[in-house]
């Protein structure tokens, strides 16, 4: 009996671990499961550890006491991946706590209402093994049910709840109309003072990417019309919508607009997709002529000095195609310039150009200056007279990366955190 109960407890820990790591990024999920497996194995093979029912009780106690931290950890990971707003993280935590409380109360009440088994002997049963076994076998299934209910509630909330805008401003009024020109005209969007957001000829897929800050390659699912049809939007929020900084009120307001008017439901998940790795092109590790180590080692100090200078504030943006500002990046059609950026940051910039995740595997550390010129697959329709024209016979981006930076983009597959569009509907009338 005791061995069976121990096996049950081990299975319970494993099952719980599988549940709360469900939908986690593959590397985190696998590492956590492997680590718990290792812990369980060590415990079962520890000669000094308790055996039998005591061991099972110890395992279940370790499991139950750690559930809040397990849920907290999984919500941390989901929040980092950007699937939830702070508000829905808090909501999930409260719901999980409430479910755990209800389940625990149910278990206690069920146990208390049960008639205890009659004690047939007269010796003082300080800790009767039969009684312990009976209690364990009757209580564990109920505990399992409680845990499953808790996990179910929290996972459902974490994975499926439509992201709720954070505490920032929301659009109080919004006019959304289909744009009759279709996708032939240019797309414009602008944030104006007073919390006004105006977008012309914008496809909803682009708006979703903007609201959730995900590039096109990380956005999957949804009907064809979200890309083929476009809309004119004129919305007014109940607060300022500054588009600067890491926490953008505009993003929250747009998420609210998409949920209210387009009934958008999304979730984050990790998929194995084609990616590129950025590696050294030459075996001897020689860099290309346009990739040189920067003399700057601390960009924070540089940017602080720029902001503290007389007349402070960031310098005006340079012309497209020109050199990047100190510790900055400048991209244009067929050109890219970076000043004092790490290879990880360069990989991120290249990722936007190739529309795939690019993982830095060069092993290079420190900051670099880089300049790249290539011929884009799609030449711009209107040439800007202020910008150097693109050479139509220049190298492709892949060739340019190899010849000019001494690096190489290798195609492979790897985990990519994607935003999945579960459902979206054409907007309701104004």
């Amino acid at each position, binding site marked *: 009996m005791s061995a069976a109960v121990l096996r049950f407890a081990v299975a319970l*820990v494993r099952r719980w*671990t599988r549940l709360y790591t469900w939908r986690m990024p593959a590397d985190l999920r696998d*590492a*956590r499961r*492997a*680590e*718990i*497996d*290792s*812990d369980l*194995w*060590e*415990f079962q*093979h*520890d000669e000094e550890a*308790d055996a039998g029912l005591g061991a099972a009780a*110890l395992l279940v*106690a*370790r*499991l*139950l*006491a*750690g*559930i*809040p*931290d*397990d*849920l*907290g*950890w999984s919500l941390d990971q989901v929040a980092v991946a950007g699937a939830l707003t702070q508000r829905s993280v808090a909501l999930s935590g409260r719901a999980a706590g409430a479910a755990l409380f209800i389940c625990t109360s149910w278990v206690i009440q069920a146990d208390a209402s049960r008639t205890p088994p009659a004690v047939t002997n007269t010796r003082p049963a300080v800790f009767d093994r039969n009684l312990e076994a009976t209690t364990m076998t009757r209580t564990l299934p109920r505990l399992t049910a409680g845990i499953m209910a808790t996990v179910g509630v929290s996972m459902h909330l974490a994975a499926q709840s439509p992201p709720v805008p954070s505490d920032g401003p929301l659009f109080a009024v919004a006019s959304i109309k289909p744009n009759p020109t279709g996708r032939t005209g240019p797309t414009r969007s602008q944030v104006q003072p007073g919390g006004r957001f105006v977008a012309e000829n914008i496809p909803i897929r682009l708006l979703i990417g903007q609201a959730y800050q995900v590039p096109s390659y990380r956005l999957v699912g949804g009907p064809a019309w979200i890309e083929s049809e476009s809309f004119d939007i004129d919305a007014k929020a109940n607060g300022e919508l500054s588009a600067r900084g890491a926490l953008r009120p505009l993003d929250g307001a747009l998420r609210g607009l998409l949920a209210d008017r387009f009934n958008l439901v999304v979730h984050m998940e990790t998929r194995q997709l084609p990616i590129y790795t950025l590696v050294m092109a030459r075996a001897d590790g020689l860099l290309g002529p346009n990739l040189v180590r920067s003399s700057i080692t601390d960009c924070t100090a540089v940017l602080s000095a720029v902001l503290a200078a007389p007349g402070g504030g960031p310098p005006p943006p340079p012309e497209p195609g020109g050199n990047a500002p100190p510790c900055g990046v400048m991209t244009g059609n067929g050109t890219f310039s970076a000043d004092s950026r790490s290879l990880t940051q360069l990989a991120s910039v290249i990722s936007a150009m190739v529309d795939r995740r690019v993982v830095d595997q060069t092993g290079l550390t420190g900051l670099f200056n880089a300049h790249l010129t290539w011929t884009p697959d799609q030449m711009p329709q209107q040439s800007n007279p202020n910008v150097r024209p693109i050479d139509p016979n220049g190298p492709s981006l892949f060739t340019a990366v190899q010849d000019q930076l001494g690096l190489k983009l290798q195609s492979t597959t790897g985990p990519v955190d994607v935003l999945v569009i579960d459902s979206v509907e054409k907007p309701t009338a104004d």
Partner: protein
Amino acid sequence: MRRKPGALVPLELAICEVAAKLRRRGSGDFHGYEIAKLLSETADTRLLTAYGTLYRALGRLEKMGLLESRWEDADLPSRESRPARRLYTLTGAGENALRETLTVGTDKVSPRARRRLARA
């Protein structure tokens, strides 16, 4: 427990302390179950630190740069027919953080952490 800026919570402090003790004995690496057992011995209790609490704390310490971890080579676990262990090591930054925490005086450390440290 709400964390004060720049401070270690008692469990993190206890993990660093036990890790430092292991390092002084010449066995710098430890795995999750091993540290849970050492912590329970230090606290003189049969109960091991809960799975979620322990591995979340180890993750936090690694993120703070106070611990580093690696998975052991696949050969040894396959020879011993057991799962691979994730081995943690106290970093130099971890030792410094521990030293600084202990230098500021145990009056700033919670009573629970003081008891753990006294037994360690």
